[in-house]
């Protein structure tokens, strides 16, 4: 066998058995394609190796230095820009100044080639550059100033442009009615722009400061006008018709968050949902769930009247979730559709608005961005799940992991008060109780098995498999051995302090058991000879057998 043949087989095994697959690059390619023609010599997105990078950086700085000498007079090198952080945390590592800005902070900086701006590691940051444009930085994003140009406008010397490279991570901004993104390796060429009020995006320190004071004053006037309109409306006697305010409605208006504006059918569905009703229902339901959880944690019986109330409210939500399922929103079962990023984002928005903790504009945009990213990952997962050799349980667990990541990132951009509304501490991670948890997806496939020890669990599983698969004697013996190994491999916490009686189940337990069960299924498929029909049946099974201590 030649080296190439061996390598080809190795690659095919990695794809077939190991599930290696590329990410969907369509979006990135099309974005770059729309960005206009670029030379083929453009540096690749991937950061080059350290030696090559050092050489490239030296070359870049040399070129920039030469360019600047030709373009900028000494005074203009002091041109400044204001950075304001509204969410998260960023570090400015400038040649002349280093500082850390937390949410609410702002500072004037004088950018020079090589200066860097780093977003914090824990959560995304929202940055307003020059008092005008808002950027959404992914955690760990590093931006680097590559070049600046100056221009003269109406007798004023202002920065004509700023080239910023995305060294790592990525950032987004709203433009042309949609979210634009730049990823590591790409460069942003920002030209002079003016806000609606004529304030320049970039300018000299004095000009920038004056322009920003003007913009801030105008913003304050707008805010006061909006408050005045709201107060007059509240105080107006009934029956007096008010003039519609010219301002944009506040973000708690219950409007759906656009996550997939490119999908008109989903957008139409989102527009049809009664979000206010959904928000009200969840607001009423969560305290009841807390009470139910408390009763069950204490080992009591299920309070039937409470359960009835919850069930009634749940019916309202279920009808909405079903609409998403019927419309083909991808996900496992009704709860898979409910937890789809586009849907969850809107249910969160609705609940927070109802609770008086509306998402602000920045949060809505950030949530929309997150939802879009994860919705696209969700699509890729769905496509992979269509592979006839994929295990349904594997796809289910990957869906749960994806939604966990989405929810974690979403939480990171919420305030502590908003987080408490969505996830009261007592319900966090409780299967079926936590409304914004991937545990809802798992709950649909849970099969609690009341047992006392691993041996009883193995017996129960054996008889379940024997009933569904037609195995020969030796094959059955092999399955018995594997099942026993699986039961013995469950973490000790499952048997000590784990699921018991009617107490609410924790997602962490279910995930731990499901992962091991997936391992068991893979081993059975790999090591036990069986008919194709049995293989298909095993691959399509999504049941999770959770031992519940009797």
């Amino acid at each position, binding site marked *: 066998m030649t080296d*190439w043949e061996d390598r080809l*087989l*190795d690659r095919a*095994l990695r794809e077939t058995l190991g599930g*290696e697959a590329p990410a969907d*690059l*369509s979006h990135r*390619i099309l974005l770059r394609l729309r960005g206009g023609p670029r030379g083929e010599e453009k540096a690749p997105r*991937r950061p080059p190796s350290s030696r090559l990078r050092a050489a490239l950086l030296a070359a870049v700085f040399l070129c920039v230095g030469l360019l600047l000498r030709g373009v900028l007079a000494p005074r203009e090198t002091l041109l400044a820009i204001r950075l304001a952080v509204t969410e998260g945390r960023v570090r400015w590592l400038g040649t002349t100044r280093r500082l850390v800005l937390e949410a609410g902070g702002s500072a004037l900086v004088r950018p020079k080639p090589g200066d860097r701006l780093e977003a914090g590691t824990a959560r995304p940051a929202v940055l307003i550059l020059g008092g005008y444009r808002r950027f959404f930085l992914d955690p760990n994003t590093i931006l680097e100033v590559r070049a600046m140009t100056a221009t003269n406008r109406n007798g004023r010397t202002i920065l004509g442009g700023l080239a910023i490279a995305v060294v790592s991570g990525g950032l987004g901004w709203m433009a042309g009615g949609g979210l634009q993104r730049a990823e590591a390796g790409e460069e942003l060429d920002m030209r002079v722009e003016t806000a609606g009020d004529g304030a320049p995006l970039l300018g000299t320190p004095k000009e920038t400061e004056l322009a920003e004071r003007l913009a801030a004053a105008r913003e304050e006037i707008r805010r006061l006008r909006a408050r005045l309109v709201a107060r007059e409306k509240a105080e107006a006697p009934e029956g007096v018709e008010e003039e519609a305010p010219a301002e944009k409605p506040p973000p708690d208006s219950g409007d759906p968050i656009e996550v997939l504006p490119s999908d008109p059918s989903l957008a139409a569905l989102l527009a049809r949902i009664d979000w206010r009703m959904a928000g009200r229902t969840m607001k009423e339901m969560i305290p009841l769930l807390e009470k139910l959880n408390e009763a069950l944690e204490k080992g009591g019986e299920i309070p039937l009247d409470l359960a009835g109330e919850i069930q009634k409210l749940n019916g309202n939500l279920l009808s909405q979730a079903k609409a998403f399922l019927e419309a083909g929103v991808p996900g496992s079962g009704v709860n898979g559709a409910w937890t789809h990023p586009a849907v969850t984002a809107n249910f969160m928005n609705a609940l927070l608005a109802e609770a008086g903790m509306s998402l602000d504009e920045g949060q809505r945009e950030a949530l929309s961005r997150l939802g879009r990213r994860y919705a696209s990952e969700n699509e890729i997962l769905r496509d992979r799940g269509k592979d006839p050799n994929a295990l349904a349980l594997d796809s289910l667990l990957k869906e749960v992991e994806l939604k966990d990541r989405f929810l974690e990132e979403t939480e990171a951009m919420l305030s502590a008060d908003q987080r408490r509304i969505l996830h009261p501490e007592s319900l966090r991670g409780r299967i079926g109780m936590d409304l914004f948890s991937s545990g809802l997806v798992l709950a649909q496939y849970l099969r609690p098995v009341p047992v006392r020890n691993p041996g009883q669990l193995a017996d129960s599983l054996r008889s379940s498999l024997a009933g569904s698969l037609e195995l020969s004697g030796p094959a059955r013996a092999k399955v018995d051995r594997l099942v026993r190994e699986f039961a013995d491999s469950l973490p000790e916490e499952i048997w000590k302090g784990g699921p018991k009686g009617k107490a609410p189940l924790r997602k962490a337990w279910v995930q731990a058991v499901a992962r091991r069960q997936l391992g068991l299924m893979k081993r059975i498929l790999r090591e036990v000879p069986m008919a194709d029909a049995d293989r298909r049946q095993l691959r399509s099974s999504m049941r999770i057998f959770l031992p519940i201590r009797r």
Partner: protein
Amino acid sequence: MSRSPEPTPPAELIRRHQRALWRWLRFLGADGPTAEDLVQETFLVVLRGPFEDRGPAATSAWLRAVARNLFLKDRRREARAAAALEEAEAVWLRFRAEDEENGLKDALRACLEELPERGRRVLGLRYEDGWSRARIARELSLGEEGVKSLLARLRKALRACVERRLWA
């Protein structure tokens, strides 16, 4: 007068070919991130240039050629001979690695089913669970070299089976 067919829209072209192109680059030796970068670069070069859509097979070949050149350019320092990549192209076509259906992957799946239990287990541990050779050796009470040659034998058996199925 015959009209040339409508050109495939870029999004469709990317969707149709990106996976095989990524596989091709990984086969040539690009690591995961490099393969992803080069897939993007390849489409950009092709879609920005005077590209004529002459059907899926010709498009695949064209994309592979562009990707191979970009890969060589990327690896210039390593000076991997272009001639060696000609051989890679021949192996790729012979094993129908491009095809998502009725190609190498389908044949391989069928051949895996034919392997004895022990062989399937070892390949599963290596490729599915990502175990190192040393860990597999411990699990099976073998020497590491033993696992290495066992894996090589299994791949050889699979290759023979795949060839039989593809060219039967």
